């Protein structure tokens, strides 16, 4: 069953020179219990898309169009008060840098308990006990002791575990994980990834992973949406993305990815140029100026996501390659 459905979402940055579009008509859905990976480079709009759902967009950036249906309501139309009820108890979050998300002058157990008192109306004592249980759930050794630790006393990996415990405190149906392992070392990253994967199955949540790391997402997501310059260019089950990448951007991105398997290459294939800046998007397909398959028609209109012939779950926004496939 569909848990979240985003339709035609647009997000603009207010600038003195007028609004600049950063998210340009995104369609996305998340089904119950699914793990969706949203992949793209800096500035592609992957974080803004998810933050717009829960009213966490930065100043001067606003969702200006589209719908985001979650549990029968349009999240984009909720009041601040209604959104506060959604945050934490229906949609949980974990962010990249736990040190900036944790309050440095509150013991970690109390920070988790605070959320429980607020969201679930628990008594302080019950909330504290529950916080210790949550710390145990996320694999923190000696949770009773650690509940009394200050954030600065914990390592980066432990802090991220605390953040995950906070994200899970309200028992959300969906967890948004925004690059939660980017700042961590690779061996710690592997531990955190294992933990979230295990918790997702145990708690039967949907998880939306926002990441720039294609290798990481391969082992995490059921389905992947590839974003480029504020549009979804390809949306498909994870195997299809890696076995049959179809959009020229997805292909180029996978091609430029160094790996530990296969032959070591002297030179890596690279994508010429850089992604367009907000407000300076080319007409038509935003990837056209960097694309190896570009046709004159590409600059005429923004391509729509279309299902591949024979695989309706594999959607690509590129008429040029779709015609070639058909």
């Amino acid at each position, binding site marked *: 069953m569909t848990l979240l459905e985003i339709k035609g979402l647009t997000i603009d940055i207010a600038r003195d020179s007028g609004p600049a579009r950063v998210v340009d008509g995104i369609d996305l859905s998340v089904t119950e219990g699914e793990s969706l990976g949203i992949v793209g480079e800096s500035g592609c709009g992957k974080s803004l898309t998810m933050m717009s759902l829960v009213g966490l967009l930065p100043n001067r950036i606003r969702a200006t169009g589209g719908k985001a249906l979650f549990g029968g309501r349009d999240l984009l139309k909720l009041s601040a008060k209604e959104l506060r009820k959604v945050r934490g108890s229906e949609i949980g979050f974990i962010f990249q840098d736990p040190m900036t998300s944790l309050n440095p002058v509150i013991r970690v157990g109390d920070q988790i308990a605070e959320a429980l008192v607020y969201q679930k109306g628990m008594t302080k004592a019950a909330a504290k006990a529950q916080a210790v249980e949550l710390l145990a759930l996320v694999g923190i050794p000696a949770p009773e002791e650690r509940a009394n630790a200050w954030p600065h006393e914990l390592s980066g990996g432990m802090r991220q575990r605390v953040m995950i415990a906070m994200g899970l405190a309200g028992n959300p149906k969906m967890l948004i994980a925004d690059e939660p392992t980017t700042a961590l070392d690779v061996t710690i990253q592997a*531990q955190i990834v294992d933990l979230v994967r295990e918790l997702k199955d145990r708690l039967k949540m949907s998880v939306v992973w926002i990441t720039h790391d294609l*290798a990481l997402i391969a082992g995490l997501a059921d389905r992947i949406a590839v974003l480029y310059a504020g549009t979804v260019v390809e949306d498909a089950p994870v195997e299809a993305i890696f076995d049959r990448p179809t959009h020229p951007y997805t292909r180029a991105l996978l091609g430029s990815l*160094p790996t530990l*398997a296969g032959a*070591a290459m002297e030179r890596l294939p690279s994508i*010429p140029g850089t992604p367009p800046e907000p407000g300076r998007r080319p007409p038509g397909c935003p990837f056209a100026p960097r694309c190896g398959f570009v046709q004159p028609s590409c600059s005429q209109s923004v391509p729509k996501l279309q299902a591949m012939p024979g695989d309706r779950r594999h959607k690509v926004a590129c008429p040029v390659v779709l015609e070639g496939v058909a």
Partner: protein
Amino acid sequence: MTALLEIRGLAKRYDIRLGAFGEKQAVVRALDDFTADIIEGETLSLVGESGCGKSTTGFAILNLQRPSAGSVRYKGQDIAGLDEDAMRPLRRDLQIVFQDPYSTLNPRMTIGEALAEPIRFHGLAPKAEIPARVTRLLEDVGMTPRFANRYPHELSGGQRQRVAIARALACQPRFIVCDEAISALDVSVQAQILNLLLDLQQKYGLTYLFIAHDLAVVRHISDRVGVMYLGRLAELAPSSALFAEPLHPYTRALLSAVPEPNPRAPRNRQRLVGEVPSPLNPPTGCRFHPRCPLARDICKTSVPDWREVGPSHHVACHAVTGPGRTNWEGPA
């Protein structure tokens, strides 16, 4: 195969004060007993997790931070601990490129001025020739001459990193330390910069010390790779050997933690338990022993020797004796 730099027993310690009033003294051993040659024309990479000392090694080799012990021989001279006046002529040859070019480029200088500065400072060209030199440097890094009039904030991250590389090239160096030089870049741009570094190496016969944490990137560009853990080298080997047959238990765990871009990759990989201990109070003996699946009593008490166990393949481990050979299988 001549060594450009001969590094012997290089160490860097920081004296710090702890406690609310700085009443406790402590020593952070950021780098200990680093011994290696850097061969002319090669790319030697150093990998490891935060705090393993890889960046400290780069700084200590260049004498940007005065080493606490050891020597670095360059052109028959020990440059470790030379004072700034004696270092200045050598700085031309020995350059560094950092992770974040935005913080190393002066925001109020145009790109042209930033590139002209080192040429003027080292007196490498008469004044009239400087603009032509700047143009050539920009072309070397794949940029058009019109960028000379731009300011750093007008450039993208990839372009700024190209400028940082051009600035290092301005003094016609022989050796460049690339300290996480591509870590902040997006995948599509990262490949461009890596290819640029490879082209420049061929064109000018450069030698690189490439400091990185991304093992997949390192595999593609390195001739040799050194793996560091808590301030010490754990393993150093030709890139092909290291990735085909990692010997040190830490190298193995590190490689096994790298995610593979393959949804069918087996998920039950070897996981390191625990976290890297504090360099303030490193474990005794082999610093990896508390997390090592092979550790025995000897590992807790004695620091393993740095031994050559295969062709140019060095490892510091009591258990490993060679490719596919260990002294024992697991803890006693």
